[in-house]
C-alpha cells in the first residue's frame, strides 16, 4: 500500500465519496435519513432507473447515446402486462412466460433502434429519439391509452416481500447488475464496447465488425430496459404508456454523475450504480430535509453540477463538448 492515494485513484473513487458526503449531509440535517428503512425506500425508487441506466451505460461507453428508453420501457411494460394477463395473470400459472417474453421484446426494440442507427447511418441521438417516439406510439396503440393493472400477489411480492430489509426486487436488480458487470468485464462484446468508444475507426481498421457491435449494444441495452420495465411494473402495479416517463434524462444524468464520460471509452456499470444512487439520494434527501418543491429542480441541478465537477478528472481534458 502506498501511503497516499494517487490522484488517479482518488478520481476513481470520487463519485463514491460524493455519495457518502451526501449521505452524511442529509443525515446531519435529518437523522431519520440514515436508516435501513430509508435505504430500502431509496433502493426501490432507484431500481427501475438503475436498470435503464445500466443499459444506456453500454451505449454511452460506445460513444453513442440512446434516447429511446422511454419508448422501449413503455412497450416492454405494456406487452408484458398484456401477455401476463392473457396467460392467466399469475406467476403461479403460465404467466411467468411473460417475463422472458418481455426481455425478448426489449432486445427487439433495441435491435430495431440499433439497426436504424447503423443501417441508415443516422446519428444515434436522432435515431434513438425517433424510435423512442415510435415506441411510445406503439404502446399507446396497444393500450389505447388505458392502464393495465398487474395485481398478482406473487409478482408483486417483488415489492412486498423483504429479505434482509430490502424488497426482493432490489436483490434481483443486484443480480442483474452483477450480470451486467460480468458482460462488461468478461465477454468479448463487453470489451468491444470500450474498443468502439476508444476509437471507432481504429477498431474498424483492426478488423472489428463495429456495426455489429453497435447493433448488439443497442439490443443488449434493450434487455436492460426490459428489466427496468418489469421492476417499474412491480413497483407500481401498473403498466402504461407513461411507465418509462422521465427515465431518459434521469438515467443519462446518473450515468454522467457516476463518472462515465459521455464521449465514450470509460466508466462502467458500477459507476452507474453510484450515479443512480447519488441522484436518488438527492431526490429523497431534499424531501426528507423539507425543501419546498419549487426549489428542488434548482437544487438538484446545482448538486448535479457539483457532483460531476468533483467526480470527473477535468485536468486531463482540454475541452468538453
Amino acid at each position, binding site marked *: 500500500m502506498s501511503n497516499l492515494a494517487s490522484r488517479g485513484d482518488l478520481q476513481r473513487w470520487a463519485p463514491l465519496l460524493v455519495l457518502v458526503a451526501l449521505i452524511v449531509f442529509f443525515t446531519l440535517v435529518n437523522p*431519520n435519513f440514515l436508516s435501513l428503512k430509508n435505504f430500502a*425506500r431509496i433502493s426501490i425508487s432507484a431500481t427501475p432507473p438503475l436498470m435503464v441506466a445500466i443499459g444506456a451505460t453500454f451505449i454511452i461507453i460506445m460513444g453513442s447515446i440512446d434516447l429511446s428508453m422511454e419508448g422501449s420501457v413503455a412497450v416492454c411494460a405494456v406487452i408484458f402486462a398484456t401477455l401476463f394477463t392473457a396467460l392467466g395473470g399469475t406467476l403461479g400459472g403460465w404467466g411467468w412466460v411473460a417475463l422472458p417474453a418481455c426481455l425478448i421484446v426489449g432486445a427487439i426494440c433495441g435491435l430495431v433502434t440499433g439497426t436504424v442507427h447503423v443501417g441508415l447511418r443516422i446519428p444515434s441521438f436522432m435515431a434513438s429519439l425517433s424510435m423512442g417516439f415510435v415506441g411510445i406510439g406503439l404502446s399507446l396503440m396497444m393500450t389505447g391509452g388505458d392502464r393495465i393493472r398487474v395485481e398478482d400477489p406473487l409478482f408483486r411480492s417483488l*415489492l*412486498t416481500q423483504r429479505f434482509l430489509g430490502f424488497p426482493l426486487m432490489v436483490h434481483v436488480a443486484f443480480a442483474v447488475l452483477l450480470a451486467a458487470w460480468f458482460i462488461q468485464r468478461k465477454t468479448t462484446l463487453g470489451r468491444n464496447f470500450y474498443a468502439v468508444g476508444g476509437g471507432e475507426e481504429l477498431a474498424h481498421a483492426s478488423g472489428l465488425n463495429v456495426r455489429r457491435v453497435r447493433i448488439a449494444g443497442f439490443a443488449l441495452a434493450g434487455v436492460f430496459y426490459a428489466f427496468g420495465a418489469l421492476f417499474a411494473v412491480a*413497483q*407500481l*402495479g401498473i403498466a402504461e*404508456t407513461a411507465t418509462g416517463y*422521465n427515465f431518459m434524462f434521469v438515467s443519462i444524468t446518473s450515468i454522467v454523475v457516476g463518472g462515465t464520460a459521455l464521449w465514450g471509452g470509460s466508466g462502467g456499470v458500477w459507476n452507474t450504480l453510484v450515479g443512480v444512487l447519488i441522484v436518488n439520494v438527492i431526490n429523497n434527501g431534499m424531501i426528507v430535509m423539507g425543501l419546498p418543491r419549487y426549489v428542488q429542480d434548482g437544487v438538484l441541478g446545482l448538486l448535479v453540477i457539483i457532483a460531476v465537477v468533483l467526480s470527473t478528472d477535468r485536468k486531463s481534458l482540454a475541452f468538453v463538448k
Partner: protein
Amino acid sequence: AGRAHAAGAIEDPTIAWSYRDRTNPYWNSIVSGGESFVESLGKPKSALVHLINEGSSEKSLADVKALLGKTDGKLALAIDANDSPNARPVVEAVVAKGAFVSTIWNKTDDLHPWDFGDNYVSHMSWSDIGPAEQTATILLKAMGGKGAIVGLGGIASNNPAIERRTGLDNALKNFPDVKLLDYQAADWDTQKANSIMSSYLTRFGDEITGVFCANDTMAYGVLEALRAEGLAGQIPVVAYDGNAQAVDLILAGELLATVSTNPHWGGGITAALAYYAATGAFKPSDEPHEHREFNGPTVLITKADAEEFKKKYIDATPTYDWKDFWGPSAGPITY
C-alpha cells in the same frame, strides 16, 4: 374568407377535440364522450378529429390553426387549452375564421364567451374547491379529527391543482387538531408521487395518519409506497377524478374517497355545444350568461356509493341526450 359564415351557416362542420394526451384515463373518458356524441349524429367514431397537444401550449395552438386552415373554418372545436393563457389566442384564431369553439378547464378570468358573439360558444369548468373540501373532510373525520396528514398536489400552476389545495385548506380550518405536515406537487404523476410518499415516510415516520392526493393517478403511487411497507389500507387516503381503478380501490378499502367530474358527459356535451352552435341549432348569443359559462357536475364517491357508481358509470355508460346542454350542469361559474 372565414368571416363569411354567420351562425347557422355551417353545414356538417368537422368536429374536433383538442386535449392533453392519450395516456391518462381522465382524457380517455373525455374522448369517449366526444365519440359517443359523434355517433349520436350517425357518424362513425373516427369522424372525431383528435388534436393532442402533449402538454405543449405551442402545439395546441398550432394544431388548432392548422385545422382551421384545413377545414377553412368549417369547424366545431372542443378544447382544453392546456394552460389558461393559451385560451385567448385559440379563441381568437377560431373566431377570426368564423368557426365555433367550446372550452373547458383552462381560460383566463377576463376571457368570456359573450365577448365574442356566437363563435365562442361556451366554457365549462368544474369548481373543485367544494368537492375537494368534502373529500378532505371525509379524510379528517376518518382520522378522528386529530393526527397529521401529508398532501400531494398537481402541476403547481394548473387551475385544478390550486383549487383542490384550497379545498383542503378550507377543510383543515374545521379541524384544528390535524396538522398538515407537508404538501408537495407531484405533477399528477404516479411515479413521482410514489417516491415523494416514501420520502415522507422517512421524514415523518409514524406521524403520518392520513394522505390527501389531488388526483387518482398520484394516489396509486402513494398506495404502492404504502404497500411496500405493508401499510396499504392502514393509512386513509383520498383522491380525485373517479377513475375506474380508484373506484376499485375504494371497494377494496385502500382508498377512502374520490370525486368524479363525469368526464364522459363533459367530453360529449362540450363537443355538442360547439357543433349545434355551428349548425345553427341554437344561437349562443341568445342564451343567458349562465348557459355560456357554467360548472360541470361532480359526484363524490365513497365506500357507501362506490358499488352503485361503478355499476352506473364504469360497467356501463349512461346514455345522454346530447341536446340537453345544461341539464346535468352545476350552475354558473363565479369569480
